[in-house]
Every structure is written in structure tokens, then in C-alpha cells.
């Protein structure tokens, strides 16, 4: 485990100040204290929500209510997907919560395959909750552990700011193909959450760059706007339609916006003078 994970929240400003090489960077890290504190609240709210939603999801599974469990799968994941760059800092939990079948040599049949996607596989492919009790209990224990660990975590500024781009990389690499939620096709829920999480970070640091680089800010906002507009077409009363209903044209538009956002947001750390 990295040393910074042991630092307390109170030490945040001090810790990032010490790491700075020059006065200018110290200025920017001081300016980042408030956005980082706000972001920490955002993450805490989401992990709290994740525990709450997972509790209901797990209860449905243990009640043997397949339809209810299916209906809760997409929405439950959103609070995880919004904060994925931070959640992923705990790689042990990320693996047990969110690994996909192809992360394992024996794919779906691998005994180590667990978490959300194992449950998704059994719910959709086997249409049952049989045999899921233990895996559901483990998922709840893992997200509860994640909630606790994240609350104890000092957020490294470069991880937070870099997270805006990381979320777009996630979408570009595995979401746009529909391979993330391959059994349930609830990918648009994940998409929406990833964009929301990325936009949150961008909006928090925007005041620090808008004066120096208004064109950049305008371009990023326009791309987020296009994504919102495209996703809005697929919204339903309680979420999103199946990913299979996404047209090739809209998938191309989303791809282009995601790749452009990934390129642009990859400069965010540098623009803020972070390493």
C-alpha cells in the first residue's frame, strides 16, 4: 500500500504542499484544496449510496427475487462507476467487486470470478439467484469495506484530477463495445455514471483554468453537452434502454466524444501543474 493512503484528510494541504517542487505548484495545490474537499464529499456520498443500494440488491438476491434483482443491477452500479478512479485505487476490492469474466483464464467458469458481473452472469444467463448467496454477501462486505477505506483515504490531487480522463479511458476501452455489461446490456447506466463522475471533477477544477484557457473549457463542455444529448435519447422513466438499442450512428458519435474528451482531459493535470 502506498504511503499516501495512510495520510489523514487533515494532512491533505500540508502533504501536497511538501510534494511541490516550486512556489507556483504550491499555489495551485493550495487552490486545489477546496475542489478536492468537495470531491471527497462527492465520493463519500456515492460510497454511502453504494452500500445502501447494494444492501437492497443483495436482499433481492437472497429473497430469490430474480426480476427485482435484475431491475436493481444497473442503478446499483452507478455510484461505483461515478467514482471508479478512486475506487480503483484499492485494487483488491476493485477486482472482487467489478472484475469481468475475461479477467480470468476460465472466464465465467473460473472459481475466482465474483462480484457484480458474476451476479449479472447468473441472473441473465441462468435466470436464477440460486447459488448466489455467498457471492452476494461478499459483494456487500466488499462495498462496505470500500466505503470505510475511502473515508480514511487522503485523496492524491493528481489521481483526482487525472480521474476525469481515466473515466473516459474506461468508456473508450471497454464500455463503448458493450462488453462491460455483456449479459444485462445495462451499459448505458455505466456510461452515464462514468460521464457524470468525469464531469464532476472537471466542474470542480474549472474555475482554476477557465481564465487561462477559455477555449479548452468551452470545447470540453461542448463535448459533455453532446454526450448528454445523445444519452438523453435513450433514457426511460427509471433509467436507460438496453445497450443493444443504441444505433451505430449514436455509437460513433459517443465514441468520437469520448475519445476527444479522453484526449482533452488528459491535459488537465498538466494544465494545473500537477505531476
Amino acid at each position, binding site marked *: 500500500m502506498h504511503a499516501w493512503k495512510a495520510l489523514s484528510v487533515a494532512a491533505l494541504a500540508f502533504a501536497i504542499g511538501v510534494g511541490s517542487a516550486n512556489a507556483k505548484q504550491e499555489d495551485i495545490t493550495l487552490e486545489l484544496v477546496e475542489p478536492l474537499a468537495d470531491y471527497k464529499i462527492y465520493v463519500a456520498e456515492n460510497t454511502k449510496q453504494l452500500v445502501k443500494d447494494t444492501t437492497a440488491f443483495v436482499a433481492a438476491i437472497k429473497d430469490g427475487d430474480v426480476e427485482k434483482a435484475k431491475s436493481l443491477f444497473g442503478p446499483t452500479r452507478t455510484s461505483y462507476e461515478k467514482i471508479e478512479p478512486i475506487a480503483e485505487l484499492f485494487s483488491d476490492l476493485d477486482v472482487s467487486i467489478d472484475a469481468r469474466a475475461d479477467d480470468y483464464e476460465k472466464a465465467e467458469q473460473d472459481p475466482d470470478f465474483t462480484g457484480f458481473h458474476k451476479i449479472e452472469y447468473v441472473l441473465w444467463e441462468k435466470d436464477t439467484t440460486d447459488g448466489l448467496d455467498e457471492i452476494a454477501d461478499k459483494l456487500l462486505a466488499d462495498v462496505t469495506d470500500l466505503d470505510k477505506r475511502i473515508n480514511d483515504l487522503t485523496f492524491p490531487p493528481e489521481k483526482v484530477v487525472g480521474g476525469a480522463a481515466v473515466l473516459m479511458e474506461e468508456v473508450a476501452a471497454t464500455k463503448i463495445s458493450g462488453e462491460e455489461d455483456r449479459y444485462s446490456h445495462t451499459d448505458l447506466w455505466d456510461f452515464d455514471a462514468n460521464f457524470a463522475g468525469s464531469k464532476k471533477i472537471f466542474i470542480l477544477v474549472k474555475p482554476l483554468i477557465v481564465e487561462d484557457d477559455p477555449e479548452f473549457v468551452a470545447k470540453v463542455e461542448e*463535448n459533455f453537452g453532446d454526450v448528454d444529448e445523445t444519452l438523453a435519447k435513450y433514457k426511460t422513466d427509471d433509467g436507460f434502454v438496453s445497450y443493444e438499442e443504441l444505433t451505430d*450512428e449514436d455509437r*460513433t*458519435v459517443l*465514441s*468520437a*466524444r469520448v*475519445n*476527444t474528451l*479522453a*484526449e482533452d482531459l*488528459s*491535459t488537465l*493535470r*498538466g*494544465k494545473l*501543474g*500537477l*505531476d
Partner: protein
Amino acid sequence: MREEKPMKKSQQATPQDETVSANRRQVLLGGIGLAAGTALAPGQAFAKSTEEEAGQGQVAEAPIAGKTVKQRVPFHGEHQAGIVTPRPANGIVASFNVIADDPEDLEALFRELTARIAFLTQGGEVPELNPKLPPADSGILGPVIEPDKLTVTVSLGASLFDKRPWLRELKPKQLIRMAEFPNDALDSEICHGDLALQLCANLQDTCIHALRDIMKNMPEYLVLHWMQEGNVPVVQASAGGEHGTARNFLGFHDGSANPNSTDAKEMDRIVWVTEDNGEPDWAMGGSYQAVRIIRNFVERWDRTPLGEQELIFGRKKDSGAPLDGGKTEFAVPDYAKDPDGKKTPLDSHIRLANPRTAKSQKNLILRRPFNYSNGFTKSGQLDQGLLFIVYQADLMEGFLAVQSRLNGEPLEEYIKPIGGGYFFVLPGARDRDDYLGRTLIEAIRSEPSQQAAEGL
């Protein structure tokens, strides 16, 4: 006749060896006797040269490039480069979906693409950025980009026009979505596209670098739809200067009967769209490009008797010479003297593709293919084939007519077209003030409907 050929060949290779009949007996008796009797011991003939050239050094030292990295193909001109440019050893075709909602977007796309290609093909230093930012360049060629004979050829697919009302009227007349021929098994994931790039260079890394550069710099306009890498075997220069065409993965010379790509008049007739073609004005100087990803069943082919392989192609495998005589691949077969196909079967590949009649003159096309190797299939067979690329001023009279004649040819048993598409190559960018696609953009702006839309 079929049986005699391979025997003669082996006799030529080692004249001191046994007689034809002795060889035949060995084949019958032992099977491998022929090979063992005629083959050189490993390294026997080449030992000296390989040792001298391999040299000494550390294992991790980079392989040394030849002087060819300095070769620069001019970017500006009436036509785009990469068509009558002599084909280098490596190539990629990449097909993209285009994001362009209006003529302004499309113009911005063309201008940016032109700027990237002009830089990449001419070479130069990569800009240095603040190290806190991602670097401007992938860095895979180092801080200075050598031109390495790179060409990047831009072409447009029918879908680009069909999907946009403001472009529809300007589509080249023969530009269509590739349709399936009887032997095709097209996979939609590797077919069609709005815009294609053909990248060619001496080294594949140069092509890959250029592709990554363009994708990194233009994500808002271009989304990759499919791509296929390819290469052709390099050969040693011959004393006479003319060293022949490269071989495909079936082991045959490919491109032997190509029209003369250094003859500008012939290229104007066969390759470049001119006023004679009845195409929109903006398309003058462009060309139709047909790309086909054609899988070769190489294991099966390699288990086919040599004589049969030669009859299927209509050429000798070793020399490339036509079956009715001649010593080299450039000898011209005389089909008039062989009307029944006794020497060159009527359904052989070269005879169907180019019957060399007065009428078939208008079906001539300029082939510029690469071989591809994509690993292997689920059955454990090699996934190899031909990245077939062909240029012509008239798609109907060109590739479509030729392929229609080839339908049902015996070669089909060994090949399967699975992907590709038809595209229209933009005219060239004439000078530094010009950009690829300018004539199309200007044509959009002068369309009456467009002027109305813009309130002109």
C-alpha cells in the same frame, strides 16, 4: 504435362543430380527422396554472406535501417501520392466513421488531415511540450520523424455521402457500397466506412506512427471502423534494375501484368478520373479505390500439386512466366494461339482477369496489394491472405467487370473475400495553400440548396 513440370524444375536446379526418371522412382519409393536428394545442406550456399552481414553487437541494439528512411515522396500534386508511387514494403488500410454534421466540420476535418499528412510524409522534428502534459507525439520513431517513403492516401466511402443530405448530390457516380460476390463471405465489422486512409512506407512502424498520430490529433472527426495491416516480401535488387513483382502468400508473383504506372498518359486513361468519365467536376484527378481483404487458405494451397497451382493461376510459380512460353513474368501470353486453353486454361486466374482482347482493354486496373498475416483461426489454421487494393478511373469497367469475370474461377476454392470496401480517392492538394477535399467543399458551397440553407 502436369507431372513433368516439377521434375524439370528440380533437374534445372541441380543439373548434376539424378535423371528425371530416377527422381520419379524416388518419389514413388520414398516420397521425401526428391527433396533430400536436391536440397542444399543448411546454410551451404549462403553461409558466407549471412555471417558477414549479421555482424556483431548487443542483442538489444536497434536493427539498422537502410538509407531508405530518407526517401521522401512529395505530398503536393495534381493527384494524391500512394497510387502510382512505387509500392513500399509495408502498408495499412484504415477505415473510419466520420463525424461531420455540416460542411464546416468536413472542411475542418480535411484541413486538419491535410496538415497531419503533410507533416508526417515530409518528416521533421516533433514539437516539445511541457513535460507535465502528454507528449505531442507517440515517440515511437524518436524525436525526429524520417519520411521513410510514407504516403497517406485519403478516400471517401459511399456512406459519407449517403448519410448527409448536403453531400448526397455530389457523390461520384459509380461510388457504391460494396456488394457481395458469389464467393464472398463479408463480415460487416471489416467492411465499408466513410473515409479510408491507405498508409504505405518502407517500415511498418512508420505506418503505425502515422496512423496513431492522425487518430490522436483528430478524435472529434474520425472513429476507427476497421483496419488491416499488410506487407510484401522484399527482394534483392537485380543487376538489370528490373527485379519483378512481389509474391503473394500463395507464392505467386502478383501484379505482373499491371499497366505501366510511370506512363502518365496511360494512368490518365486507366487510373485518374478525367473529363471523359462523366464524374462531378470536383472529382477530377481522383480515382476509384477498391479494397478487398481476401483470406487465403494457405495450408490447403500448400497441399495442392504444383502443376495444378500453376494451371489455376495460368503462370509458372518460380518465374511467373505465362504457361504458353516466355522466361519471365513480363512475357505476354498469346491467347489467340491458344483458343481452347490447352496451354493456359480458359478459367485460369490471369486469363479470366485479363483476356487481352481489344474489348478487355477498357477493364485494365492498377493493382497495388499487400499480403496480410493475422495470426490464426479457431481451427488452428493460419489466418493469412491478400489486402487487395486496386485503382481505376471507372469502377464498373474496372474492378467490378474484372471480378465478375472471375466469379466461379477454380482459385475460389482457396480464397475467401471477407472484407474491404469501395472508396473514391480525393484529388491531390496542389500546393501549401491547398487542402485535400477543397474541390468537394467548394462544390458543396456552390450547390443551390446549400446556398439557400446558408442564406446566400
